[in-house]
């Protein structure tokens, strides 16, 4: 009797809750160790470096007009690019999962190219395409539209690198949606648009948000593909990562780490916000 209550007590105190499936301690320890080594440790170095500036110094870096402009450029355009990717990515994923057509697998493979390509290659290719004498740049120039070496160029490059994130996160969920759901919606009198809005989109909303977050995060940190097409004019088309390089080249290490820390903070805040929205949408729409 007393022995059994003791066991119960010990079970109640033990962390984690005892399970017949072993391996929590080992995997949890490994995760902590690796996360620390690979992510937290380097990032803490960054914060320590920046702390030499102090909060006032950090603020000083942030309000420097050129830095503020670059941060705005980076975050706003990344946000816009991720938003565009959500739309295109969803349509692409839809086509790839829902329809059988010749060349489907080929198209499916192409989606991953922005992942695989060295970003500089993408940047050079895009710059050549959109340059005033390029295949697309030349006809567009006739309408007075300039893409390369403007902010639009940055947007084009970021849309390019972010696309696979949305497609690949949404695809498995789309594949899971039963066609019968759409048919049921139709027999109940719903129009096609209504079916898409009320039946198809809600279950994939969490995945869309994840895709958005990934594309956004990637875009904020993107460097290689952007610098070739952006033109890099200070105050106009200069992205924050480029400015860090510029500062480093001028041996302004404090300024460089300052910008980096500010980027880190903003990125973290945005991703956290997206994660919270996602948790909410999971609770709202994720009943499986």
């Amino acid at each position: 009797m007393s022995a059994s209550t003791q066991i119960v007590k010990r079970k109640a105190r033990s962390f984690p809750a005892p399970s017949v499936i072993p391996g929590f301690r080992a995997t949890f320890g490994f995760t902590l160790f690796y996360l620390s080594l690979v992510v937290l440790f380097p990032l803490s170095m960054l914060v320590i470096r920046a702390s030499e500036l102090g909060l006032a110094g950090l603020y000083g870096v942030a309000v420097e007009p050129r830095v503020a402009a670059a941060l705005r450029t980076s975050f706003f355009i990344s946000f816009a690019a991720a938003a565009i990717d959500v739309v295109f990515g969803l349509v692409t994923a839809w086509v790839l999962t829902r329809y059988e057509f010749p060349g489907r697998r080929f198209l499916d493979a192409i989606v991953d190219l922005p992942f695989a390509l060295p970003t500089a290659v993408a940047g050079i290719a895009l710059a050549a395409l959109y340059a005033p004498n390029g295949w697309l740049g030349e006809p567009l120039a006739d309408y007075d539209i300039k893409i390369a070496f403007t902010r639009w160029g940055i947007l084009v490059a970021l849309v390019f690198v972010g696309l696979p994130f949305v497609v690949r996160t949404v695809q498995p969920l789309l594949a899971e949606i039963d066609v019968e759901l759409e048919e049921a919606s139709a027999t109940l009198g719903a129009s096609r648009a209504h079916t898409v809005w009320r039946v198809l989109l809600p279950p994939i909303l969490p995945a869309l948000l994840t895709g958005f977050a990934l594309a956004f995060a990637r875009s904020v940190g993107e460097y290689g593909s952007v610098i070739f097409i952006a033109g890099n004019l200070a105050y106009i088309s200069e992205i924050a990562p480029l400015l860090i390089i510029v500062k480093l080249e001028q041996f302004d290490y404090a300024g460089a780490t300052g910008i980096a820390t500010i980027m880190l903070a903003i990125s973290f805040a945005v991703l956290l916000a997206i994660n919270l929205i996602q948790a909410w949408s999971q609770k709202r729409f994720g009943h499986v």
Partner: protein
Amino acid sequence: MEIRIEGVEKDFGDYPALRAVDLTIARGELVALLGPSGSGKTTLLRAIAGLSNPDRGRILFDSEDATTLSVQERRVGFVFQNYALFKHLTVADNIAYGLKVRPRRTRPSRAEIAERAARLLEFVQLDGLGARYPAQLSGGQRQRVALARALAIEPRVLLLDEPFGALDARVRKDLRRWLRDVHRQTGLTTVFVTHDQDEAMELADRVVVLDKGRIEQIGTPDELYDRPASPFVLSFVGEALALPVQVADGKVIFQGKELHVSSENLRNGPARVYFRPADIALHGGQIGALEGRVEAVRRTAAGLRASISIPGYDQTVEVDTDDRVGTTLGSSVPLSLNNVRIFSTAAEETLGDGAGI
């Protein structure tokens, strides 16, 4: 509403899924489409609903040609085998879905929608579960939600695709009885698809037996049991045994001996004699044309059950008897057949009824 199907055909590539289907379903009737998988029964149901279009032929709702109507315009209540409930909506929202999607002109007020959803929940005996999500319900409950959702739009016909297919046996039985009640209370013309002949026989006013995209027979359960139109119907509806025989000049020959069954209108050549397991019996008298060997005898509550092998026939038949002496192991026993039906193997069409040996 009356459903009239005229010469409907549908091909899936080279495979003819429906061939020359003619069928009229009367107003308020409860009809089962029965057949093995691949027989075209679900295809036919989906064609009625407008979820797939027939390649040829037309479907009429009363006198209106429904073939040209879209799924939405047909206003049919369709219940899917796997329920197809919207997982992200509550039970009440699922039921109200068909009302909420209506254009503003015809959409009932919010309060009215809520009230109708509540009434339907009560109707399907799920009152109080409106706030739950489908994932929190059992299979039988989900099926009832699916039915309530289909009824919410006040459908002109109710179509059910294997409505009880995914449920366990006990729930099936309950839901069957319940569906009968629903049909009686709503008076809706109802068509359901099943591969389970018991289900079809128990529920339906009339059963349509399909095989390989063709209608094999349309009839009441009695007609299907007592006057099956083809060997397929005979063996699909209930158990049947078949003896391979030869027909020659009006005589039916099995293993070189004549079976005394009527063979009117039978063509010469190979044929089969079909009978139900209950229609074979030990024959008290002398050895007749058909005899078997007693392979095993078991005691049952009522008497004895003997397994008997018939020379020239590869299955043993089970015969109930109370004759302990006549059924010693290994002995030869005379057998009699009642209610046999003979079908020519070549043409597979009904040709003669037999009245016994």
